[in-house]
């Protein structure tokens, strides 16, 4: 198995992108309270996580099995979130008298 060596340049680009996103997060918190704060913050966080996984953790340059492992773990995270949210969204559906 060969190891792809990532150029320092790439690391630096990703690093500054992450810093930029960090400022974006801080900036977004100053938006008026009507703005969709959670959505914005989560989107930025997801992009940052993907950058880290792909480049800092070398998944982008790895073989198929590594991709499968990475995607499967995200799938597992989705399971956790999906079933938990399914509970939250359907909690109010059933009318319970007196509640």
């Amino acid at each position, binding site marked *: 198995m060969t190891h792809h060596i990532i150029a320092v340049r790439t690391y630096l680009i990703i690093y500054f992108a992450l810093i930029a996103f960090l400022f974006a997060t801080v900036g977004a918190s100053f938006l008026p309270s009507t703005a969709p704060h959670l959505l914005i913050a989560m989107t930025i966080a997801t992009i940052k996580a993907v950058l880290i996984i792909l480049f800092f953790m070398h998944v982008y340059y790895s073989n198929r099995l590594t991709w499968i492992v990475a995607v*499967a*773990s995200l799938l*597992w995270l989705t*399971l*956790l979130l999906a*079933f*938990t949210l*399914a*509970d*939250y*969204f*359907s*909690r109010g*559906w*059933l009318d319970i008298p007196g509640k």
Partner: protein
Amino acid sequence: MSVPAVVVEDPPEDYLQEHTLKSWLLTTDHKRVGILYMISVTVFFFVGGAAATLMRLELMTPRGDVLATPDAYNRLFTMHGVIMIFFFLIPAIPAVLGNFLLPLMIGARDLAFPKLNLMSWYVYIIGGMIGIWIMVFGGVDTGWTFYTPFSTMFSNTMVVTAAVAVFITGFSSILTGLNFVVTVHTMRAPGMTWFRLPLFVWSHYATSLIMILGTPVLAISVVLIALERIFGVGIFDPALGGDPILFQHLFWFYSHPAVYIMVLPGFAVVSEIIPCFARRPIFGYKFIAFSSVAIAIFSFLVWGHHMFVSGQSMYAGMIFSILSFLVAIPSAIKVFNWTATLYKGSIRLDTPMLYALGFIGLFTMGGLTGLMLASLAIDVHVHDTYFIVAHFHYIMVGGTVMAYLGGVHFWWPKISGRMYPEFWGKLSAMLVFVGFNLTFFPQFLLGYLGMPRRYFEYRPEFQVLNVMSTAGASILAIGYVMPLVYMLLSLRKPPNAGPNPWGATGLEWQVESPPPVHNFHDPVVVTCDPYMYSPEEAERDYAHDQHVRNA
């Protein structure tokens, strides 16, 4: 001045040859790490067992009299749960038997990451030391489940320290799982194809997947508890915008699959013992192999069955209930296949087989009562009663502990090079089986009649069943102490087991007992399927023996 002669030492013959403490504490030999784990989990088993003994003594009478306060009782059952689950059941089979056997079974020199393997033991010991420290200096009273809001807002005990202990220990389990997955993928001997792997390896592979995918979520849950307790971050506290039920989601996302971390390795052991003592190839190899993987996947889809009365949405409850019924299918496949393996076999009832047969019966009872609990309506009735306690002890003690003991007896000749005394072995297996049922069957009845769990006093009409349970526990205790004694005593004699006392298939039986440091002298090439047993041959041998004896 004389020049010391250069002595060329022969490499030690077997892995037990070196005796220094340093050679043990700095070993990277998977067999030695297995032994280190064996010693440590045994210690924790008896510590957790002592807590159980005190609880059973307390519950002999309806009034609280053995322990000073109800609070002491709360700390006692919490310590029993935490120690037995995190420090015994989860590492027991994988870290002891798995570590020792996995490389031998696939024809490898060691695990893929020997140093990580040793590190996992140190991590485990650090977690365990913190656990013991908690027990000595105050304890925790939340139950092993750390439910919010009690754990975050009300408990005055060492919750954060316990969270740290669980967090740390989790990493030892992740490291073990990681090691096993990589080892199975990369270190199989030539000819050892996936469908030639012993089912022990398949089950451990499935277990490892759960360890890797689930344990981080447990770590996150306990970190969040600590954050909320220390900094008042609003994750579980409704007053701060949190939600207490969120903790149960996070916790059970790991802890239901953790049940399978504990019992899949039990399946692993039983799948080796049954064909050997029935002298038949295992029935439905691929079904058993794939059902392990199916269990690993489905086990992540059912966690809400612990939350039917928690305030979880009714619709989520219905989905979790249906999915819980589905996860019973792969477990049932295994039970039917083991039973089918016995059919027309030439059965020998040695100690490992007695334990394995006990496992099948008790696990089946635990599994079927699990289906009762997965039904929404029954669960509302028996939730948080002794019915639950009985159910999971049938799985964990009747299942995992029986399998562990069966496995330890089965591979003891390989691990130590010595036979254990067969008479005492059989006696211990019988005592454990009888004592276990006497301890826990009455608890099904108690729970169904409405006795709640986790109280140190109870209504007088429950006393008869509680006394039965305590009586059973004392028999069980004798059954557990016996193997400890006779196995240690067997070490005083020189090795007498020979490479393959059971006439078993499998690569681990082809090397001497105890195995050499490097496992195999020559490169291994695998040319046949596993479990090539022949009942006819066994019957012929038996008839021949009888003939010789009668002549």
